[in-house]
């Protein structure tokens, strides 16, 4: 496992000069992944912010092979690459180990690409799928996705005078993928680079499908000053809204347990997308959201305890 110092002396494979917003966590995530994966890696990216900011022809931020196909099919596309790689390897036409990494935003993963991802995991292609979850369709202007938190304002779940933001809790995609019984999956966030990069490294060392769901703070869509991305990412873990954990061969393991679980409000109050929840008459929404966080965290604790 390389240290941060070592990693920072490596040449970037996801280069600067891309067009992500200042403070975009997703670009930090991709940079970290590319560094850990190294140059013997093929990336497939789904339509969304990261594809758009990194590949505007004739420029590219990618110093490793990169393919964009469409919005909902990066997992299926990667399964084709992995298949030809396996075929060539079997016939001795290729000898080196090449990583295949597919990624998509929450829209391209939780929603429109869910089937494609499920299929690729079930067929047990040897690939890492990485979801950078910024909790909405950012590229098209901040529309709600099934990953958008309860109560959040987006342009299709606006905080109106009658309906105060998104009315559903987010889908638990990580557990949905766990139900595929793949050898390794994890939740991570970029503020904890050591945990995150270790997970990427582990996933790539494992034969078979692996999945990492990475929370990806987005100043534009979450509405906060650009310098707060890492702080907000950290708070998501400290409030247990976004537990850092992994599931290896079916066994849940929590990688970060806050000494004292912080109230969800601390995370919420830094973000403009939740501003409407701070008024007195929407207090119950924060309470419900807190209850849901508590319920899920308790469940995770129990699973980890029971080693299931």
């Amino acid at each position, binding site marked *: 496992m390389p240290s941060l110092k070592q990693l920072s002396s490596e040449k970037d494979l996801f280069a600067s000069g891309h067009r992500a917003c200042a403070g975009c966590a997703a670009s930090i995530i991709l940079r970290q992944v590319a560094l850990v994966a190294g*140059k*013997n*890696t*093929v990336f*497939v990216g789904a339509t969304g912010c990261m*594809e*758009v900011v*990194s*590949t*505007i*022809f*004739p420029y*590219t931020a*990618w*110093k*490793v*092979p*990169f*393919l*964009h*196909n*469409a919005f*909902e*099919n990066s*997992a*299926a*596309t*990667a*399964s*084709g*690459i*992995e*298949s*030809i*790689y*396996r*075929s*060539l390897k*079997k*016939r001795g036409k*290729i000898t*080196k180990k*090449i990583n295949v990494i597919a990624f998509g935003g929450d829209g391209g993963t939780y929603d429109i690409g869910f*089937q*494609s991802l*499920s*299929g*690729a995991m*079930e*067929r047990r292609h040897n690939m890492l799928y990485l979801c950078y979850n910024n909790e909405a369709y950012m590229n098209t202007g901040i529309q709600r996705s099934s990953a958008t938190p309860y109560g959040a304002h987006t342009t299709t779940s606006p905080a109106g005078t009658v309906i105060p933001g998104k009315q559903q809790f987010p889908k638990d995609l990580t557990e949905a993928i766990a139900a595929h019984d793949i050898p390794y999956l994890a939740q991570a966030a970029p503020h904890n680079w050591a945990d995150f990069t270790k997970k990427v490294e582990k996933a790539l060392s494992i034969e078979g499908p692996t999945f990492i769901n990475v929370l990806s703070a987005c100043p534009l869509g979450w509405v906060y000053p650009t310098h707060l991305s890492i702080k907000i990412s950290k708070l998501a873990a400290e409030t247990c809204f976004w537990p850092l954990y992994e599931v290896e061969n079916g066994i849940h393991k929590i990688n970060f347990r806050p000494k004292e679980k912080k109230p969800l409000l601390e995370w919420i109050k830094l973000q403009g997308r939740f501003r409407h929840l701070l008024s007195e008459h929407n207090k119950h929404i924060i309470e419900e959201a807190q209850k849901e966080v508590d319920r899920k965290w308790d469940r995770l604790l129990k699973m980890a305890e029971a080693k299931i």
Partner: protein
Amino acid sequence: MKKIVVAKTGNEAMAEAMRQINPDVVAAYPITPATEVVQIFSGFVADGRVDTEFVPAESEHSALSACVGAAAAGGRVMTSTASQGLALMHEVLFIAAGLRLPIVICEVNRALAGPINIHCDHSDTMASRDSGWLQIYSENSQEAYDNTIQAMKIAEKVFLPAIVSVDAFIISHSMERLEILPDDEVRSFIGEHRKPYDLLDIAHPITLGGLDLQDYFFEHKRQEIEAMKEAKTAVIEVGKEFGEKFGTSYGFFEEYRMDGADIAIIALGSTAGTSKVVVDTLRAKGMKVGLFKIRVFRPFAFEEIKKSLEHIKAIGVLDRADGMSSIGGPVFHEIRSSLYESEKRPFITNYIYGLGGRDIFPKDIETVYRELNEIAEKDEVKNLINYIGVRE
């Protein structure tokens, strides 16, 4: 050269061609009436008769997406589908062509829902005609086999994907005489795999499918258009070479008894076979009739078609799909457009037929010839758009 003569259905014939091509990757999803192609091919994989990695995708969208990934990573790639499956692939069809990936689809022409139907018409491939794929229609099992082999070679020559199709059930499930070429002959005919890119070439990383905006997209599309023009040359070269090696030459179209013909029918696929029988009958009675069978619909042989047809007095275009434009089918429009510049400008009428598998009989085709005869005699088209065999 030792050809093997067997009895095979259209599906079996295409699967056999796929086996001989021995693609690196086949990613597919079952759908009636093309299911058999995938089934038979899975058998080849299971028995180790091909080197192919078979990806049993969870949908046609994913199947073609996997094909795109595999082809971009330097593989020779094929798939098979029909109707709803081709419609589900629609988005990715354009991407495969735009990225210039020489993938081949063995397609079975089945009506597009709704209402849902499983039988033959051409609405599925006609709905994909603008996607940048070559389209080759087959009259029978033999052509399905020959066309599949040629399609792979043509696709890799011009770096465009190709669809080879047969009519649902009429060809896909009918047992016919098939001459199979020796494996090594097929492989040497197609030659070494020519790949446009190789994502697995780690030493030379490329970014493919990136965002292409106002400043470059048009140039890339212009190149794709040019490739489709070049495909015309490739179709002819490969069809000729196939003839020299194996005995039967192929071109854009087949002119059946068109010499001295006054009137002609234009058809695609199995109906061309039925029409030939009618042509023989009518010729025996002294009528100057011919059949013009379109084999390659994309690229469209505009000039060549004009040249071949302009001396005909009256033409009936049979369309097994309606463009829902309120003014006839897709083949009709393109044929009519081809003849616009002709000074002679034949009379042209359109016959929509066979939707959802409605049978077309020799007597129906005979009626068309009689109507064309009347048009030629009276110098007048009464009905521009006609429907064969429908209750109205």
